[in-house]
């Protein structure tokens, strides 16, 4: 079905279910309980999970399959955001034209940057992409101010033409983004017992696009094209002497992943119609590399998981402050309490980077295959304990790992 075999179809259905049920799954603690601050089921954060999931899925098509490590993908994220906001200013607040332009513009950008950068491989390729992204970032601040509005960032205002849509909303404000009338900001709160779930139109819009993006990426992974990309990572020499030209394949992968990044940028702007140059900074490019490696390079689920973990830490750990720590460790003797809090506060609040850094190191050292490998190890541990497979492993040739897991 849908061009997928049974196993992949099951996989896609599970992912779809998890994505659609996210507002419930990420809200495991009742309101008002001490753990409620660990709930992540609020629209803004869930949208970020979906959007950065898309970003990472696209990045993985390039990095995971071909092994070309781009350090400049945030440039495409920025281009996508600017394009979308311009559509909101000129055409209408409907997100569709914005997203279409975002994907087209970032694709064109990726074509140019990729064409030049892919003349080199390895570290030189990474440096070239980094240079291009930093150049875009600096241009956005300086020469391109008429397009990007410099430091202030590009915003929608009451004076924008919006020739196809409303210029000013009924209440006299800038109208909100919508998808054919469905307001992105609309949300429905449902309370069950002491639990409260928020179902937001914006999240579901992002989620459906993320599922489509995931599906397309799954098709690419299973296609002859995807096989060629993996071959590029494995042995370019052999690829050449098999009669294949690696350049157009890598360029196509680069453009596709650039378009994914542009889509993510467009979605960011659709959720909050504002675009700033900081979205293109090298730290943002680095973040998607971390997400992909943390989750598992070259796996289907890894980048999404990685994006989720990093965005969760960025939003949840950074909220934990001194007071919260005092509540947690109040039961300790005073002298001990102050030492523990002193140590702990470096890992929470603005120090959340420390936690993510430690987590990243642990994963890279002990689980080179990322969180996905961790999951697989746990799975096989339980399988072996149940003794389901008592055959001598020596007599089983090692099966090639399935790229979808």
């Amino acid at each position, binding site marked *: 079905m849908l061009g997928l075999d049974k196993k992949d179809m099951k996989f896609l259905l599970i992912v779809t279910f998890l994505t659609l049920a996210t507002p419930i799954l990420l809200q495991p603690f009742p309101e008002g309980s001490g753990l409620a601050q660990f709930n992540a089921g609020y629209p803004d954060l869930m949208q970020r999970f979906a959007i950065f999931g898309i970003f990472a899925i696209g990045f993985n098509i390039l990095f995971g399959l071909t092994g070309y490590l781009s350090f400049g993908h945030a440039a495409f994220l920025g281009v996508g955001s600017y394009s979308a906001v311009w559509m909101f200013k000129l055409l209408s607040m409907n997100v569709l034209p914005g997203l279409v332009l975002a994907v087209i513009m970032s694709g064109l950008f990726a074509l140019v940057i990729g064409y030049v950068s892919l003349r080199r491989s390895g570290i030189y390729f990474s440096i070239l992409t980094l240079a291009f992204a930093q150049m875009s970032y600096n241009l956005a601040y300086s020469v391109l101010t008429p397009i990007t509005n410099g430091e202030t960032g590009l915003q929608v205002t009451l004076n924008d033409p919006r020739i196809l849509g409303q210029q000013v909303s009924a209440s006299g404000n800038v109208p909100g983004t919508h998808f054919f009338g469905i307001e992105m900001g609309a949300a429905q709160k449902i309370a069950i017992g002491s639990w409260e779930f928020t179902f937001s139109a914006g999240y579901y819009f992002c989620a459906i696009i993320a599922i489509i993006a995931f599906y397309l990426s799954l098709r690419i992974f299973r296609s002859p094209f995807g096989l060629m990309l993996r071959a590029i990572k494995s*042995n370019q020499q052999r690829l050449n002497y098999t009669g294949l030209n690696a350049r157009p394949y890598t360029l196509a992968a680069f453009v596709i992943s650039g378009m994914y990044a542009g889509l993510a940028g467009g979605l960011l702007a659709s959720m909050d119609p504002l675009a700033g140059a900081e979205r293109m900074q090298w730290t943002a490019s680095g973040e998607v590399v971390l997400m992909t490696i943390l989750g598992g390079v070259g796996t289907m689920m890894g980048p999404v998981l990685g994006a989720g973990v990093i965005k969760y830490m960025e939003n949840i750990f950074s909220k934990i402050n001194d007071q919260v720590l005092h509540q947690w460790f109040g039961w300790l003797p005073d002298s001990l309490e102050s030492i523990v809090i002193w140590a702990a506060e470096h890992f929470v609040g603005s120090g959340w980077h420390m936690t993510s850094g430690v987590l990243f190191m642990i994963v890279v050292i002990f689980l080179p295959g990322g969180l996905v490998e961790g999951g697989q190890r746990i799975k096989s541990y339980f399988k072996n304990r149940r003794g389901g497979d008592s055959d001598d492993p020596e007599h089983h040739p090692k099966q090639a790992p399935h790229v979808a897991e």
Partner: protein
Amino acid sequence: MGILEVKGVGKRFGGLQALGDVNLSVQENTVHAIIGPNGAGKSTLLNCFVGKLIPDTGSVMFDGQSLLGRTPYEITQMGVSRVFQTPEIFGDLNVMENMMIPCFAKRDGSFRMHAFESVAEETDLVEKAEQMLIDVNMIDKRHMHASSMSRGDKRRLEMAMCLVQDPKLLLLDEPTAGMARADTNNTIDLLKEIKEKRDITMAIIEHDMHVVFSLADRITVLAQGTPLVEDSPDKIKDHPKVREAYLGETQQ
């Protein structure tokens, strides 16, 4: 007129004249061996055939077309396949995936954007790849990770990947270098089998005399960048010039 015609090829690296004036003609459906002591320019010559090096002088014609200035993938698409000294395979992929890539390259050319088709649904190519694996006795290893196989199996796989493209000319660069005796004999058997079953032309560079004399129809001896003699294996064996160049002495 041979399928591969090499005329007056010379190549210089700085002060070193790696190839002097090489003339060579590989006839269709024969195994032509190029032998010579270390530094004789065998690998340089081979690299001139596949587009890795461009000779300073001379011409290399394959099937009536010049190979000079073409990239390795273009030359491969013309029907020249190459087996490397150390087997070059896609180590991260399994055996079947390794086989599918040359099948796609043969059918679709050097690039095609088939991003929304499924590899598993290409039944014709899957069948072709499987048949090839049966031919080289590797079908039971089809799901194995290519990098986890023995060197002999890797060589076998590499050979299969070349043969599945039905090349007009197969170039082998010291196919048994660094192999144990058993693996060497295996490779000889495999090559003999290929030679008998298929209409294929092979040019083989080799150190191991045992391999050369059990396979070759024609032998060119290269020394210091120029061909010394070209003849049938029987005559080469006893040729005094060859003994001198190769062994550095004349046996009494």
